[in-house]
Each structure stands twice: as C-alpha cells, then as structure tokens.
C-alpha cells in the first residue's frame, strides 16, 4: 500500500519544480548520449558507405592501400592475368580521385569525388547508372550525384529544366547528363560518375596504366575465399586480392584507427552520462539530507535500512524513466535535424535505444548508491 516505491514517488513529486529540474538533467543526459552515439554510428557508417556499395565478389587493391579514399594504384596489366581463372566471370577496373568542381554560379571551386567506372557493369550499387551506360561512353559525359551538397549550386534544378548542364571540373569542360541518387560521406561533399576513358581525360597526369581498384565477379557457385587465395598467386606482390567483406572491414579498422570518431563521440556520450549522474546525485543527496530526521524517525519506528535504501533507489529509477522518454523523443528530433543539416543519415537503432536506457539506469543507480551512504548514517538514536 505504501511500499518504498510509492513513498519515493510522493517524495519526488511533492516538489514539482525540483522534480522538473531533476528530470531535465536526465533528459539532457539521455539526449546527449543518444545523439553522440548516433552521430558516431552515422560517421562510421558513412565513411565505409563506399566500400559497402561494392557488389563485386573479390576486389583487387594495391598492397599500399590503407583506405580506398586515398588508394595507391597498381598496374592494370595485373588484372588481365586474372581472367585466366575459370572461376572469374568478369573483371572491371575502377578509378577514384578528388577533383575540383567549379560552381558555375559563384565561380568557386569545390572538391568533388570522381569515380571512373564501367557503366555497363559497375559492380557497385549505383542505382540507375546502367540506363545511362551508352551515353556515358561518349566523351566528357558525366553523371552527377543528386544527393550532393548545395556547394555546387542549383545543379539539379538546371538538369531538370534544361536536360544537361555544362560545367568545369579540373579545368575541363564536361557535360552533366543527369543525376542519380547515391549519397555522400564525411570524405566527400559530392560525387561524379563517369566511364574509365572519361576519367583518364579528366586526370591526364595520372599514369594511364594504373588503376585504383579491380572488381571481380565470380561464376555462380565459386567460393570467394578459395578463389581469392588462388588469384593472390597470380598478382604476386604488386597487388592484393580481398573479399568484399575484407574490404569493408579494412575500412572500418582504418576509420577507427585514424579518425578520432570513437574518442570524440565517446567523450560526448561520457559527458552526458556524467551530467546526468551529477544532477541525479545532487537531487537525491539533498533529498536525503533534508529528510535525515524523518529517515532516522522511520528507522526508530522499525523501518529497516533496506526499506529506506529502496526508497532512494526507487527515486533514482523514477527519475531515469521520467528522463529517458522525453530525452529519446528529443534525440529523434535532433537526428532529423542533423540528417537534414549535414545530409548524412542518422537513425535510431533498437540496440542504441536499449544501450542508452541501460546506461541511464546505471547512471541513476550509481547516483543512488552514493546518496545511500548518507541514509545509512541516519542514526535512530539521534531523533531523541
């Protein structure tokens, strides 16, 4: 009837202002944790997005390549050897580089990621590129990424209005023939897709015989690991054959080792945790301190330490529940704002929601544990 939980609720809800402040502290903590961990995940996902788009079974890279965003090249002739294997169905080469896109409106140049890829069989998840394949074979015909940032000007509007748009990239005039929606990452603000031949025209200084990636499609039924091991012998030390999954894993390792993503956002989440911890602790501690005579009286009348401890822990749990749900909803709103603002996808996962919920419980629980020490000091004999 008046279990420790209800007494805890009466105690917390008696002073509405205090309750609001305490809950607001938890809300901020929950929101910070969710947003920071969300951005961390978003940044990680984003930076491996290109690797995840690869649909080839095997990928040939230079042994010097640490990340495909700064790939070293290897000789194209190595790829020709691989066709001799009966398991290989198709091989294509892929080129990647950063170019400078001149915004036709403000005449400023902005960096852009340029992909040279066989449009008939890209072996990358680039939705819609095949339908432009024949046109892309023509000289200086290029596809624009419809999800690129606004830096490049109202390109999409112009493409819609007049069909094509002449722009300048790397001091060369090219013709944008249309756009496909692919998506950008923290490494690139926008993407251009073109055939390998047009890529060579765009970068005349690059050695024409060297490629960034080789993409291999295997015949049905071939085991990628087995074929990889066999093909590795064909390319020797000049290149490396990896599976699609290895490529993705290597990107994840690279980003975690080289970009301080875990540290920065982990730190942000930790700050959130700490804010919540301190606010809840302060509230619980003052509640206990202000009611020491009453707590001591309850003890004198035969209430156990356990009952009083449960009262404090219940208050902590109530605060974590009151703070979690508004914090969760605010975080969803912020995900949307962030997604729109920086055109990077942030989404809530069940795993993160549960993790942060548990963290919130731990945060409030720890605060309670420390505040509880004060309860134990309540000496019933002091009431007299």
């Amino acid at each position: 009837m008046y279990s420790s939980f209800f007494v805890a609720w009466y105690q917390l809800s008696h002073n509405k202002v205090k309750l609001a402040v305490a809950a607001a502290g938890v809300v901020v903590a929950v929101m910070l944790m969710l947003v920071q961990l969300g951005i961390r995940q978003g940044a990680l996902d984003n930076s491996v997005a290109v690797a995840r788009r690869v649909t080839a079974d095997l990928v040939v890279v230079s042994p010097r390549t640490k990340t495909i965003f700064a790939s070293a090249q290897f000789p194209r002739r190595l790829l020709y050897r691989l066709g001799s294997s009966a398991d290989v169905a198709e091989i294509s080469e892929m080129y990647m580089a950063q170019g400078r896109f001149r915004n036709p409106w403000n005449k400023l140049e902005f960096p852009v990621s340029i992909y040279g890829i066989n449009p008939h069989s890209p072996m990358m998840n680039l939705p819609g590129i095949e339908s432009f394949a024949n046109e892309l074979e023509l000289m200086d015909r290029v596809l624009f990424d419809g999800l690129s940032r606004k830096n490049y000007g109202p390109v999409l509007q112009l493409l819609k209005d007049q069909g094509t748009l002449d722009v300048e990239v790397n001091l060369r005039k090219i013709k944008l023939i249309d756009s496909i929606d692919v998506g950008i990452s923290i490494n690139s603000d926008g993407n251009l897709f073109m055939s390998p031949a047009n890529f060579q025209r765009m970068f005349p200084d690059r050695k024409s015989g060297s490629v960034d990636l080789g993409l291999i499609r295997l015949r049905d039924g071939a085991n990628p690991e087995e074929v990889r091991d066999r093909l590795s012998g064909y390319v020797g030390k000049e290149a490396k054959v990896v599976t699609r999954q290895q490529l993705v894993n290597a990107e994840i390792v690279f980003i975690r080792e080289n970009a301080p993503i875990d540290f920065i956002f982990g730190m942000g989440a930790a700050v959130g945790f700490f804010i919540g911890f301190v606010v809840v602790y302060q509230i619980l501690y003052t509640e206990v301190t202000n009611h020491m005579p009453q707590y001591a009286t309850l003890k004198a009348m035969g209430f156990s330490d356990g009952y009083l401890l449960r009262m404090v822990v219940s208050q902590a749990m109530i605060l974590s529940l009151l703070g979690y749900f508004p914090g969760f909803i605010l975080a969803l709103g912020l995900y949307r704002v962030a997604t729109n603002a920086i055109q990077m996808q942030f989404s809530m996962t069940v795993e993160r929601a549960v993790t942060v919920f548990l963290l919130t419980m731990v945060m409030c629980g720890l605060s309670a544990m420390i505040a509880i020490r004060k309860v134990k000091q309540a000496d019933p004999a002091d009431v007299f």
Partner: protein
Amino acid sequence: MMNETFSMTTKPSTLPVISSRHVNFWFGDGDLRKQVLFDVSMEVASGEIVLLTGPSGSGKTTLLTLIGALRRVRSGELNVLSRSLHTASMEDLVEVRRDIGFIFQQHNLLPFMTARQNVELMFQLHPEISRSEASQKTVEILTSVGLADRLDYHPARLSGGQKQRVAVARALVTTPSLILADEPTAALDSQSGRDVVTLLQELARSHNTPILMVTHDPRILDVADRIINMEDGRVHSVE
C-alpha cells in the same frame, strides 16, 4: 499482538513490560569513555504510565533510547516486551522497535505525505493487516485525535498541536505493546500540550498500554502512576 495485550491485562503483576537490572551505558571507549548511566534498575508494569524526569544531562533520554532498542546497553540486563535487549542482534532490535510506539519531541512527519498517508505508512511494518483494515484504522485513530477533517492535509498545513496529534496517532495506530515518549509537549503551548497528553492517556488506558514518558513539564505530572527521578545517570528517587 492483541492476545499478548490481553494476557498482560489478566496477569498484570507477573511480567513487567520493562525490566532494567544494573544497566550501565557509556559513550566512547578508552580515554574518551564518558559514562552516562550508572547501575540503573527500574521496572514498568503492564498498563502503567511512568514519567521519567530529571535535569538535562541526567541520562533519561539515553535510558529511553536503550529501552527503545535504538542503542545497546554496555553492561547489565535489559528486558523489554519479553526480549533480552542486552543479547539481541541488530535484526532483533529492529524487530522490537516495531512493537513500540514512539513519540518524539519533534513530530518528524514525512512532509511530502498527508496526515492519512503518514499514519497508514506504519502498516508497512505489519503486513499481516489487510489494506482495508489498515485504512479503516487510520481514519478511526485520526478521528479520535480530532483530525477527521484534516485527513488529507500535508504537515505544512497543520498547526504544531495538530502535527503532534498526527504523530500520536502514528505511534498508536498499530496498537503497540509499549509507548515511549520523549518530551512530547516540549514544542507545544500549554493547552495543546495538555490536549496531547490527555489524548495519549486516554488511548493508552483504553488498550491498557504502558507508557514511559520523559518530561520536564510540571503541568503533566498528574497523569503519572509513578514518577522516576534521575540525576547524574542514576535513579534518584521513585514517587
């Protein structure tokens, strides 16, 4: 508990509710040892109202805390409600407290709960009593202390006398076997003080519950069956 009370009323003289034999108590140890009770022997029989008086520092409140199982005697024997407090464990002490109704100088009601909730909270210690019975008893006792129209008031909205009456109701609602009171009138004006003591007396008499009350207040000495005077940690005289 009712049976216990009943058996005491039939055989009042055989079993004292409180019996203290050569009790000594001191604070601190070694060089810091300060003895406050010396060889205290006294008894309270069932149904008796006993006042404990004496100048401040005479050890009467300390004696009350020992009897209330809030402190442990250092030497001697102390039996309260047929339990030996000098040998009891911590859990046993907490158990004994549940059979005792405490009334303090300060009411110490929980400020965030209403009069009704403060009183009803006591039944947490007596899970054998049903909810409906508990809330019925709560209303009854608050009515009998004259607070029928203040049931759902928080302590902040009650006067000093009313708060102390809630505290009395809280101490008595679970029909304890013994009532310990520490200067319950100290914080009250003479009329409210008198009212609270009379109320306590009536409620105790109706259940034949013994009361041990520490007081300085000469206005309430008339309610006592016996008065124990203490001085310098010793029982000085018994009237």
